[in-house]
């Protein structure tokens, strides 16, 4: 079971966690929450542009790949677009399975691919009220994705 949501509004984490569902065979739930950092007081937030339609489709494809690779019962993912203030959630990914290894692997796999494959672009909003540069893609994120090829 896969559910993916792109939201322009702040995330209600209790509702997102509930969206994962549960059954009597669920022994393990792993989650990841990505938050907007303040970068040592430099930022008021991040603005997230996305490609409507493709964003949902791409995260769904990533979740499907995870479910083919590990015995996972369900994956739920939600990603913000629009202006996200410091300390606010950007992305939430949860997976459930009978045992913990599959749940851990699935969430980390989805995050690693989401970072480099899901069509979102961040730009900084600075403390002085101006809009900063677009955030540059990180080599570390490409390497994080590549580790799944070796495994």
């Amino acid at each position, binding site marked *: 079971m896969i559910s993916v949501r792109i939201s322009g509004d702040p995330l209600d984490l209790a509702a997102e966690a509930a969206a994962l569902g549960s059954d009597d065979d669920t022994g393990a739930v792993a989650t990841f929450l990505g938050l907007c950092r303040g970068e040592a007081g430099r930022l008021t937030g991040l603005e997230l542009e996305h*490609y409507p339609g493709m964003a949902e489709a791409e995260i769904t494809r990533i979740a499907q790949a995870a479910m083919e690779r590990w015995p996972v019962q369900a994956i739920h993912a939600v990603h913000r677009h629009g202006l996200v203030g410091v300390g606010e959630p950007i992305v939430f990914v949860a997976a459930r399975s009978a045992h913990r290894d599959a749940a851990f692997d699935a969430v980390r796999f989805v995050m690693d691919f989401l*970072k*480099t494959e*899901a069509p*979102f672009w961040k730009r900084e909003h600075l403390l002085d009220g101006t809009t900063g540069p677009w955030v540059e893609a990180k080599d570390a994120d490409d390497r994080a994705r590549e580790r799944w090829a070796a495994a």
Partner: protein
Amino acid sequence: MKLKYFAWVRERIGLAEEDIALPDDVATAGDLIVWLKGRGEGYAYALERDAFIRVAIDQEHALHTAPVRGAREVALFPPMTGG
């Protein structure tokens, strides 16, 4: 064919999307980028680092060598920075 642009590709071109008639000699995504660069200063600036530009064809990631003929929607954008 609908073209979509995102992030600084969108800003430099000055358009979020446009409809084009694909010239006969444009076969691949790479050909499309080269053709667009000849359409004006904004396009040339947005697409100056060809190899850096990512392509989606009908909302799926595609290589520059992928054929675009027959596609409904092609999108050009910088490397992604979500999550």
